[in-house]
Structures are given as structure tokens and as C-alpha cells.
């Protein structure tokens, strides 16, 4: 099956129906989850993704998760939500608790990719993060929604308080590193490369 980033961004990913455990995830994590699943032979996991663009609209995440859990609850032994808090202000955690499902710990994928403990210890207030997916989809998630192509003067209003762009790489990919450097340049930020692999995502999935 061919997955495109554009599809993951706008539409997400449909479950195959095979597997005892359904992962309800952000579309921005689809490739990474499938990689972890394949590498670990985690055939009991099935994956369904919500549109990744909800990353920019956290208010859509909680209702969409509720609908998906309700719809699929009877089809699987267990449902696991592969979102961190993701800007929902604790509401996703509360909703998962109410629905009786678990979720990945942490404030954001930036945190669990690096492992939550390491991310917290860094205390990088002025870092702007990109993952593999967000590097590939930089225009769709950052440049275009912020209107920076049409209004370049807005760049410093958005990013004036940031000092660096950190590319948290899940894979070792020279093309993505070059693109991330360009993203940093476009935002007027210094560039830092940091290989993270899958961090707490991997351990969370392996525990299911």
C-alpha cells in the first residue's frame, strides 16, 4: 500500500481490520508506527490515523478520538491512543480516561521521540522542533498556514522569540537533513540536528 504525506496530512490512514489492538494515532506518526511495528514483528497491532493536520488544530483531536474509539471499541480487544497531549491542555488525557483507553505519555511527539525524561531535562524554551514528517510537510504545517509566503514580514512576529530549529530525526536521511537546514534558514533560526530514533514511541508500542 502506498502512503503519501499529503493523504496522511489531510485524511489520515484507515485500519486494515487485522490485529487485536487498534492504535488510534496522529497521521504524522503513521510511517514511524509502521516502522516500529515491522521492526518488532508487532503483528497484533492495527493502525488507524486521524488527519495529521489536526496538529495545527488541537481542538479537533479530542472529539475525533472519541468518535473513533466509540466506533471501533467492539472490533478490537484494546485501543491505544498514539497521541501525546498535543496542545489539548490535558483534555485528551481526561477523555481517554473517561473512555477507558490508554495513551502515550508526554506533552508532544517532540518529547516522546527524544524520550520524555530527556526532553524535560533539556528545558529548551526557545527551540522550534521538526520531526521527519514535519520536515517533509514543512510548507503544509508551518509556512502556508502561517501565511509566511504571502506575508514574509510576519516571520519575526511568529518566530522572533525562538533561537534555533531542532530537527529531531527519526531516520538517518541526508535529504531530510538538507531540507531541515533550509527550513531553519527560511525561519531565520540556527539549525541543530538531533537523531532521536523512535524514543518512547517504540517502548510504548512494544508494551502493548
Amino acid at each position: 500500500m502506498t502512503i503519501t504525506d499529503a493523504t496522511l496530512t489531510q485524511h489520515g490512514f484507515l485500519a486494515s481490520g487485522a490485529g487485536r489492538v487498534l492504535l488510534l494515532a496522529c497521521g504524522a506518526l503513521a510511517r514511524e508506527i509502521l516502522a516500529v511495528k515491522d521492526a518488532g514483528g508487532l503483528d497484533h497491532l492495527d493502525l488507524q490515523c486521524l488527519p495529521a493536520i489536526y496538529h495545527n488544530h488541537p481542538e479537533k483531536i479530542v472529539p475525533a478520538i472519541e468518535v473513533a474509539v466509540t466506533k471501533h471499541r467492539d472490533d478490537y480487544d484494546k485501543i491505544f491512543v498514539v497521541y501525546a497531549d498535543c496542545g489539548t491542555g490535558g483534555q485528551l488525557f481526561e477523555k481517554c480516561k473517561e473512555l477507558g483507553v490508554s495513551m502515550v505519555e508526554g506533552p508532544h511527539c517532540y518529547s516522546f521521540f527524544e524520550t520524555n525524561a530527556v526532553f524535560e531535562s533539556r528545558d529548551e524554551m526557545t527551540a522550534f522542533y521538526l520531526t521527519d514528517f514535519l520536515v517533509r510537510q514543512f510548507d503544509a504545517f508551518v509556512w502556508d498556514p502561517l501565511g509566511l509566503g504571502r506575508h514574509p514580514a510576519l516571520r519575526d512576529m511568529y518566530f522572533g522569540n525562538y533561537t534555533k530549529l531542532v530537527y529531531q530525526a527519526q531516520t538517518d536521511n541526508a535529504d531530510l537533513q538538507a531540507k531541515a537546514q533550509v527550513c531553519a534558514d527560511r525561519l531565520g533560526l540556527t539549525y541543530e540536528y538531533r537523531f532521536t530514533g523512535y524514543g518512547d514511541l517504540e517502548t510504548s508500542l512494544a508494551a502493548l
Partner: protein
Amino acid sequence: MSEEDDIILSELNDEDLVAQMFDDLYDGMREEIEEGVNLLIARGWMPYRVLTEALVGGMTIVGADFRDGILFVPEVLLAANAMKGGMAILKPLLAETGAPRVGKMIIGTVKGDIHDIGKNLVGMMMEGAGFEVVDMGINNAVEAYLEAIEVEGPDILGMSALLTTTMPYMKVVIDTLIEKGMRDDYIVLVGGAPLNEEFGKAIGADAYCRDAAVAVETAKSFMARKHNQGAMA
């Protein structure tokens, strides 16, 4: 637009000029707004009238269209930037002419958080509504809020946060005010993308404000109540 179609602001009568300024504000045209403000002042308008009728009137439309999903953040920021240009001209004149002051607010993003777009919008809209606003900037620890309270003597304390990890710090500030027996002396308003009304109540704020327009209305409402309480005392 061809040269023949260019609108010469100075050739418009007051009514048409204000209408044009609404359009220019909507389109984020800072230079045109500055020119319009200067023209109205030169025509004898009081600074407060320029502020309320031309700028705030225009920003109210921007705010409503943002709320209704017609305008998005980039356009609102451009409009705000245009209003800022007009405000820079009006501010000293407002001080000179003794324009009515609704109240005083200190506002800052909480410790650990560098996001200030929402805070800046609120600050500007509050100024437009006649509040004196002291902007504390970003990454404010409780000590900074206490110091600003002591120095500025505000009616309202505004706190902003964009991160789920930083929003709990608002409670630290409020709890400190409670410990010091100061909480009831101030109206505490909170805002930021991950917040909601429930959170505002849980941490002991007076109100959660969904956006800048709501912040202004909420602040006005609380100030009116405060004045009424004062009158009844």
C-alpha cells in the same frame, strides 16, 4: 490596482475616510492607517474619537471575522500591525488630551513560555478599548508578576500561555496571590490556546478569555462590577 483607481485618502470626507480605514485595517495596510489617523487628527478629531471610531471600529470587524472563520491568524496579525501604527501616533495624544481610562492591566506570558502573539493582540485590543496596558513580555516568573503589581498598581492581571506544560504556572501565580492575601484585590484573566473555561475556574482565575475580543468585553464587565461595588460600599 491601476493608478487611476488609487484612492487618495486626503480627498475623502470624514465618513468615507473612516470607512476606507476599516478596509485598510482589514487588509493590514499600516502606512495607510497611519496616514488616515494623521488626517483625522488634522481635521480636528479628538484622539479618543479616532481610536474608538476608526481603529477599534475596524478591529471589531477583524475580530468578528476571525471568530467566524473568515479571517485567519496571519490576516489578524497584519491588521493588528496596522492598528499598532495608528496607536503609536495616538498614544501620546491620548495622554495629553486626558482620554477616559477604563482601567489598568498588566499582562505577561508565564514562566517557561515564549509565545506572545495572543498576549500582544489582547494588549493592543485592551489599549484600544481604553485600558492602560503594561506589557511584561514573555517568560515571567511569579516574582515578576508580584513586582509589576507593586510598581504598576493594576486593576487587572492578565496571564497567557500557549503550552500545556506552562499553563499550570498560572496557578502558581494565583496561589501566591492568595498566600499573600492579595488575590481579591485584582481581576485575574487568563488565556491561551490550550486553556479552557474549566481550567480557568480550576486555577482560581476570574475568567478565561477565548480571544482578544472576549478579553476586552470580560475586562470591561469586571471593571463595571468593580465600580458598582465601589459605589455601594
